[in-house]
């Protein structure tokens, strides 16, 4: 017998980022049974990889901690990590779901002491830091990860490292015999919250992200500024490790472009404006030049934009950069023509940050359920989706604030479906 109890009055939430967590908590706190399925070994998603939020410039860990506590204390919520939904069949009010659970090789006995990490030798690209550094084969994604349980990389299984990790563990929490499992669940409604991924900057050929060391993306810059990040909070040039002084931000790197992403990713302008604060705080005499088509400080953030405009260390250049070349000392050179005066420029920088946009993390065609997508691949609100409701960035390019609003709305829709199911289910017959 499975230890997970799920009926057609259960809500399944797919994806444990800020949207998924928000939807799951809202529904669970409204008294519904919720199962949250997360692909990673930890919940929190992209938000955990951010250094600071705009506009308040506070740390995301703070809000995440509150959510983690809500999750821990709510018996209605079951969280499955390293789990992926492979199939959804049935209809609104009665779904059958298959979930694949990947082996973690570490049990709940883990005390997060970290001795397995010290014991193993193999290192891999650290996906949490977008490959900017390496991590061990036994690891926890980041300090505050929830659950506080380590993971063994499947690539060390069968090697000496695996036994070393097992021997080092004082809590006997490592189980090398763990196998991949597939479990079947029932649910009445599904909240789909698989979120976004950064647009692949390699596709923007003229910007040479693949060719020039000192051209990086905004998500990488975010990690660099994090004290717990790959560089311990120091901004460095990938080519020589030196501290950059002149930094350029290129807006709409991939967004609002029919060759790449047709939509405006909505967050990148605010993200770059926010990152100019990092430059001022972390780099002595650092300057930021922002190349833009037009600044879209969404929502009520115009004042944030105005404050950045008043900053002497920040310059705005109205131009979509045409192409990047490499000058002396691996310095990227931005080439183009500006729109205010039509001046041709070739400006040299120490570091260039591409403000890459958001694309849906699930490719069209990879959904385990029939779903209506728009041409950008985001989920449309449509009757045909039945009891599957999109939350957060799987529905549109959103910032955290709007993603949480969207998640709460989806939770309500899911709860409504469950209430209808509950009203007609046999156990309620007697009550009427």
């Amino acid at each position, binding site marked *: 017998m499975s230890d997970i109890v799920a009926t057609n009055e259960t809500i399944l939430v797919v994806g444990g980022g800020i949207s998924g967590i928000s939807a799951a908590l809202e529904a669970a706190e409204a008294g519904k049974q919720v199962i949250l399925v997360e692909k990673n070994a930890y919940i929190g998603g992209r938000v955990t990889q951010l250094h600071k939020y705009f506009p308040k410039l506070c740390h995301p860990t703070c809000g995440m901690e509150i959510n983690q506590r809500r999750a821990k204390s709510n018996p209605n919520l079951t969280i499955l990590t390293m789990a992926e939904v492979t199939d959804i069949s049935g209809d609104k009010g009665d779904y059958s779901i298959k979930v694949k659970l990947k082996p973690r090789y570490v049990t709940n006995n883990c005390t997060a002491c970290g001795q397995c990490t010290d014991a193993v030798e193999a290192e891999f690209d650290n996906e949490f830091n977008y490959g900017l550094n390496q991590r061990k084969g036994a690891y926890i994604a980041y300090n505050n990860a929830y659950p506080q349980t380590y993971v063994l990389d499947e690539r060390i299984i069968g090697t000496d490292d695996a036994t070393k990790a097992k021997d080092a563990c004082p809590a006997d929490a490592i189980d090398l015999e763990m196998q991949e499992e597939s479990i079947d669940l029932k649910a009445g409604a599904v909240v789909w919250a698989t979120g976004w991924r950064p647009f692949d900057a390699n596709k923007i050929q003229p910007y040479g992200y693949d060719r020039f060391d000192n051209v990086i993306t905004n998500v990488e810059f975010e990690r660099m500024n994090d004290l717990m990040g790959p560089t311990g909070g120091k901004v460095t040039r990938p080519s020589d490790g030196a501290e950059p002084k002149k930094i350029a931000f290129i807006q709409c790197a991939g967004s609002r*472009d*029919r060759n790449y992403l047709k939509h405006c990713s909505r967050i990148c302008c605010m993200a770059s404006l926010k990152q100019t604060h990092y430059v001022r705080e972390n780099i002595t005499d650092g300057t930021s030049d922002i190349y833009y088509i037009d600044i879209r400080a969404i929502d009520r953030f115009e004042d944030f934009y105005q404050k950045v405009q008043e900053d002497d260390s920040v310059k705005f250049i109205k131009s979509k950069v045409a192409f990047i070349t490499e000058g002396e000392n691996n310095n990227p050179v931005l080439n183009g023509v500006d729109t205010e005066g039509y001046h041709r420029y070739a400006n040299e920088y120490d570091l260039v940050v591409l403000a890459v946009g958001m694309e849906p993390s699930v490719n069209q065609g990879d959904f385990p359920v029939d779903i209506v997508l728009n041409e950008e691949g985001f989920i449309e609100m449509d009757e045909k989706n039945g009891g599957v409701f999109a939350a957060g960035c799987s529905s549109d390019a959103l910032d955290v604030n709007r993603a949480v609003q969207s998640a709460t709305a989806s939770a309500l829709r899911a709860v409504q479906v469950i209430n209808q199911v509950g009203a007609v289910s046999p156990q309620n017959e007697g009550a009427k």
Partner: protein
Amino acid sequence: MSDLNQALADKYKGNFLKEVIDNVEEGDRVQMCMQCGVCAGSCPMGPHWEHTPQKIFMMIRANKREAVLASDSMWMCTSCYNCIARCPRELPITHIMHGLATYAKRLNLVPKTQPTAKFAQLFWNNLSSKGRVNELKLGISLYFMNGFGEGVKTAMANQKLGLNMLKTKRMAINEAWGGHSVKDKSGFHAMLKKAAEIENDTIEANSK
């Protein structure tokens, strides 16, 4: 100013954008430009001409009729298509530039010393006579474009190249007598005539 030019200028007084939309091939797409400047920065000829495509499009909207139509810009386009490939809104920039060139030519506003305009005419004459480009004749007419003396000089300077091309069959000497042609030459001419008719009628009608 030619009569047609005057008539069109009067007709569209104060709305050059409308004039472009109505009369220039794919001119309607000018409206889609969001002035990002990628075309201007991507153009290999960019530093050598007066107005970048981005600037031309803005000038069209700003009603700078004379400056646009007399610009050398559209004549400097080498049709490399870099701008089209990179334009975030997929504007057919190259085609619009050629459209503007054709329109300026129709209105007799091409700068007199514009060498590309001269070559474009030579190319068209060559192509339209038989439906195939006669490269030998085109080469010769290009050499003699600026007078007989200079033509001989250029021909002498390129003598070796020419002989090598003959040797490797990259140039056929018998093209000098007649040359190859499309199968249905009269049909081809009829088609061109009809196309010119439609184009003339449209612009004629737009000028009234």
